[in-house]
């Protein structure tokens, strides 16, 4: 953390120095050369450098400084000797205009980028939290079974020893085995309870809007993989009562899976379709289909189990997490068979995942 902030300050200082040096150069040039409005263009360069900083103060300060320098130039530059006064004033005005337009537009862009970055890191954080949750849950479940068997068998063995001579030491050992296996499972359980406490904030959201946002996040990766993302929805809003970030995580996860599933397909057959439809007054259904090779039949049974993955990377928790999120929202997430799907018409079997969410009342 400290390291990052130190690096950030160094970055800011470097920008400040470049801005100051460049502004001074432009000022000197402006004073010495009869270029008129051309100097304004150079000030834009100074503002653009300042925009590399994330701080608003730096950008606005630079714009103000450049404006002052532009005005200060007016009486000093060799303009008046050759040009009429009104032209000089118009030149300087244009110069100021360009400086401020650059500063303001640049700042807006910076802010949008910043919010996008925060959004992504929020999603990444949720992903990590959910992964930990899922891991702890699966671990607790898998460990509880053998630990139950150990504790019970040890106790049964103790019972069998009753009445035999010299069984005291054995009895102590067996009691220890039983107690420690219970202790181990308590540790696992408390670990799971610890990570389970993730807050969830539900609010009414238009699912179409949420999809648009997710598609924007997914677009760069899709373009890189030469996959076309196509979405179909209804004209009216699809209001659901959900935790925005969590549902976005589910959409992102399904889209990522779909895009990755197409890596072996021919370049002109890489299509991912997302449809959203109300299936009843109380339910919305979302389908994410890809035109890929489909899922191996032997995998479909275990698809939603933790640690089930066909990929060389990844933990195999994505679908397990997505399913737990959707179920926590009162919906269902499942793999559709080929014939069931409405949106799948290509020759490839493809894969379609569907989930439902209850409509906000």
């Amino acid at each position: 953390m400290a390291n990052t902030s130190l690096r950030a300050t160094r970055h800011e200082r470097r920008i400040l120095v470049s801005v100051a040096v460049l502004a001074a150069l432009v000022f000197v040039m402006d004073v010495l050369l009869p270029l008129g409005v051309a100097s304004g263009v150079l000030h834009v360069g100074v503002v653009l450098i300042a925009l590399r900083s994330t701080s608003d103060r730096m950008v606005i300060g630079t714009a103000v400084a450049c404006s002052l320098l532009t005005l200060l130039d007016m009486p000093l530059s060799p303009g008046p000797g050759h040009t009429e006064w009104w032209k000089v004033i118009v030149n300087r005005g244009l110069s100021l205009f360009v400086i401020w337009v650059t500063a303001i537009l640049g700042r807006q862009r910076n802010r949008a980028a910043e919010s996008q970055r925060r959004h992504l890191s929020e999603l990444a954080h949720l992903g990590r939290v959910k992964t930990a949750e899922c891991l702890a849950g699966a671990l607790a479940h898998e460990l509880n079974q053998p630990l139950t068997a150990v504790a019970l068998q040890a106790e049964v063995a103790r019972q069998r020893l009753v009445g035999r001579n010299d069984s005291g030491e054995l009895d102590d050992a067996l009691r220890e085995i039983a107690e420690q296996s219970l202790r181990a499972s308590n540790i696992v359980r408390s670990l799971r309870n610890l990570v389970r406490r993730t807050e969830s904030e539900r609010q009414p959201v238009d699912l179409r809007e949420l999809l648009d946002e997710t598609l924007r996040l997914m677009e760069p990766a899709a373009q890189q993989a030469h996959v076309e993302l196509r979405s179909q929805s209804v004209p009216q809003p699809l209001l659901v009562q959900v935790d925005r970030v969590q549902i976005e995580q589910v959409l992102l996860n399904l889209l990522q899976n779909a895009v990755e599933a197409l890596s072996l397909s021919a370049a002109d057959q890489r299509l991912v379709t997302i449809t959203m439809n109300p299936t009843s007054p109380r339910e919305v259904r979302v389908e994410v289909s890809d035109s890929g090779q489909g899922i191996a039949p032997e995998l479909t049974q275990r698809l939603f189990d933790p640690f089930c993955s066909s990929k060389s990377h990844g933990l195999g928790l994505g679908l397990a997490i997505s399913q737990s999120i959707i179920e926590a929202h009162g919906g269902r997430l499942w793999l559709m068979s080929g014939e069931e799907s409405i949106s799948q018409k290509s020759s490839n079997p493809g894969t379609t995942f569907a989930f439902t969410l209850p409509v906000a009342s």
Partner: protein
Amino acid sequence: MIRDRVEIQMPSNATLYLIDDDVAVSRALEAVGQMLRLPVLSFSSAEQFLKFDLENAVGCLIVDIKLPGMNGLELQAALRERSCELPVIVISGHADVPLAVEAMRLGAVTVLEKPFPLQQLTPHIQQAIELDRSRRERSQQRELARGRMAALTPREREVLDLIITGTTNKQIAAQLHLTLRAIEDRRARLMRRVGVNSVAELMSLVQQANLGEKSPGE
């Protein structure tokens, strides 16, 4: 440390039925059953258990809530549908409060979260088997009482129904337009026929016959 060997008097035909898909847990529970000197029958799925002769299943059932295919709760519901009253102990791999509540609502003797110490399990097995035994005894008594009552003629039955509601002989005579003497005769006959010596015995017989049925007042 003082400890007693777990020694329980079990009905001779009581069996411990197990459904758990985890082999190690199944084996451990089998060992518990053997320790309690109970015959053990192990099943790996609820469907497999339902194919079993449920009517003659005596004892208690231990079932894991999470099973491949039909889960523990669905099995409880299915057993109810088949009016099988075998007491059920539900064991669960992860503490899920709503599921536990649902299991209790469906009539589970208890819900135990894995892992549980043996000392926690055995009393529940005892309790469940005792519950099964007393249920069976009651239903046997009911069948017996009903058999005895079935021997009554419609006229005797009429008088019996009035006696139960606390009507005196005089009132009954007035209501049925008969002499007090005739009512007394009929009453003595019906008591002989069902084999009781007092009104108190008669009342307890009627009660036994009605056990497990909802009386109109409830």
